[in-house]
């Protein structure tokens, strides 16, 4: 296990096999006694509170909150990856209609919105989660001035990454302040005009002005985002074909130089605003806002197995994030097992490819069997 600092001031929670409710409000005087408890309980999931308390075992309002780590969660659940139709599916709880991919907001048949979802973890989804994490870390250091030394990065053992900031300064932030930080990372409520995007009149001609590359915070990032956008396929973002070709014939390197907002023929304020909103979307880090704003959150203990997958939730050296392979490094089991698989997409673990499977009994390495069992895609054979 990789317990957090000040372990005795935190609350711990366990979800046990077959248990419906979390066993929580537990405290341990040191990591060794926590480890003993984990060995005795053999829980499905292990959590600790991001909050520090005077009395971690007391009821919620008597705990005496003294601060909380600043935490961020990036999860493929919140990302719109194109591979979801290949490995995720849904079933309407009302009428039983099924489909592939992330669940739609409303059932196309009966318009109900209560869905049962089956998700899977794949290279593509985790790669996108990794990219979001990289953007998050960049903003944490460059914009928020978070100390590298105080920051830890973890693979969640499922579909994403967690970032914990253990710093005295940020530990005192309240919910509202953390909400502002979440909004910043998502650029929620960002108004380009407040970053000095405006149209002025110079000698009777209308001239657009706005932020420039290299300026701090969202200003430079807006321009960098437009730069990225113009270097990619951007005809699907709601511009007319005339606007698209005007931008195509323009040299986007101009963005790196002097004021450019008035230098593209046929591109006015409203087009720039469309581009900015797309650029901001590209550059923002899609964190789960609930996790960051909750100052009493229970969060997964690094170094324990994630009960949704059997994979290890583990520390990732930040400089190794790029090369970290979530399908190789967190593998924890040895040996082989026989399981009866209902249905599963194809997947990779280590250098081996598995599946897809459908209604078959297979002998598998334990790591693969565990993943299928934890995802409720298979049943053990006694």
């Amino acid at each position: 296990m990789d317990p957090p600092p000040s372990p005795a001031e935190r609350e711990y929670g366990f979800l046990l096999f077959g248990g419906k409710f979390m066993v929580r409000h537990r405290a341990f005087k040191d990591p060794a006694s926590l480890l003993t408890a984990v060995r005795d309980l053999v829980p499905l999931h292990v959590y600790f509170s991001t909050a520090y308390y005077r009395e971690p075992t007391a009821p919620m309002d008597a705990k005496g909150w003294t601060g909380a780590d600043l935490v961020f969660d990036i999860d493929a659940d919140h990302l719109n990856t194109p591979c979801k139709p290949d490995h995720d599916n849904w079933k309407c709880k009302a009428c039983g209609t099924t489909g592939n991919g992330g669940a739609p907001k409303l059932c196309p048949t009966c318009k109900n919105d209560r869905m049962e979802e089956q998700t899977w973890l794949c290279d593509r989804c985790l790669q996108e989660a990794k990219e979001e994490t990289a953007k998050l870390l960049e903003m944490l250091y460059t914009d928020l001035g978070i100390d590298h030394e105080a920051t830890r990065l973890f693979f969640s053992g499922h579909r994403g990454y967690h970032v914990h900031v253990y710093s005295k300064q940020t530990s005192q932030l309240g919910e509202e302040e953390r909400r502002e930080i979440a909004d910043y990372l998502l650029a929620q409520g960002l108004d380009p005009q407040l970053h000095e995007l405006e149209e002025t009149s110079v000698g009777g001609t209308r001239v657009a002005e706005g932020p420039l590359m290299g300026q701090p915070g969202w200003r430079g990032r807006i321009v960098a985002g437009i730069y990225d956008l113009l270097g990619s396929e951007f005809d699907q973002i709601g511009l007319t074909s005339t606007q698209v070709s005007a931008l195509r014939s323009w040299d986007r390197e101009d963005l790196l130089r002097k004021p450019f907002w008035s230098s593209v023929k046929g591109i006015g304020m409203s087009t720039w605003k469309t581009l900015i909103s797309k650029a901001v979307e590209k550059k923002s880090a899609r964190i789960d806002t609930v996790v960051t704003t909750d100052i009493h959150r229970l969060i997964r203990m690094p170094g324990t197995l994630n009960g949704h997958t059997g994979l290890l939730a583990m520390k990732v050296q930040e400089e190794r994030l790029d090369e970290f392979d979530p399908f190789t490094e967190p593998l924890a089991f040895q040996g082989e097992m026989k399981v009866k698989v209902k249905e599963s997409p194809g997947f990779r673990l280590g250098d081996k490819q598995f599946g897809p499977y459908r209604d078959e009994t297979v002998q598998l390495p334990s790591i693969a069997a565990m993943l299928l069992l934890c995802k409720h895609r298979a049943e053990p054979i006694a």
Partner: protein
Amino acid sequence: MLTRADLAKYPFLNEASDYIKELGISIDDIASPDFSPVLERAEKRLEEALSKGRVSNEFNNENAEILSFPVSNLILSLTGEERAQRRFALAEAKRAYELLRQENPEKLDYIARTTFGWKLKKIDAQPGKRFYDFAISLTDYLRNSVHLKEPKWKLPNRILDHGLVYATREELARLLEEEVRTRIVNRSGRLPGEVPKLLQPKVERTRGLITKWLGIPSHYELPKVPSPEAMPPCVRHLIDNLAEGKNVQHMGRFTLASFLVNIGAGEEEIVKTFKPASDFSEKMTRYQVEHIAGKRGGRTKYTCPMCTTLKTHGVCYKPDEICSTIRNPLSYYKRKARILTGRGPKREPS
């Protein structure tokens, strides 16, 4: 760095308290006739704050200006009226703001640093059109900006560079106003062991002023019977969604339940609202409603989340005109109910 004239402008500063200590004055000296200008000014401060929400400047008697501030605070604390303390704190903070915004950057920097413990840097930056004098540490910025509603205070609309938020001199003064307000509110309510008899009539008179200008304390006149027409768009949307059997996420359910609890809806009624939900469990709903109402668990009655929180979590829905004037769905309800019952907006002391 600070002169006595500065202390008269900013009597809430640490230096002002130190100055009073140095003068060797204690609360018992109030009875002395030499102190009548101080008492008079203290009462005037209160009257101005309560009647106009503003406090004037009287710099011709600097000592009276410095000493009257803690006396006003003491009288107000003795009334035990929190809403009056909040109004006084706001009025004094506004007064400070008007003075602070005219100060030079060095003095602003000094006050922010010494009295309020801010970490900030004096800068000289013009990344675009605007000129910035200060870069304030993120935590000091956020602690104060979260109270300010205008979009320009939202963090994504600021320049944030390595943990520092750029601010103009004017903006720094505005953030300090918040800090001053919080400081005065936190200070009030602290009472000395013994209170001179002389103050008692002043306290009574202030109670009279409070009633005159702020009205009889009331629980903001919520309608006796929950009135669906007065509910904000977000709450109505939640109820509609539930009625249509649509799924409502946790934050939405919590918002609805806490809203209904706070407007005085009965438990039965609230449970009934959740009935159409496709995953309705009466036992679970009842348990959670009782929890929110403070009848279980931690025994805290939960209040409805703020609009900003609802925006972040996507619960805010089609905000209307009234929404732009409030910060919590409960305030919407109070305001709309007053309009609907034809009593109009509550009269604010002008």
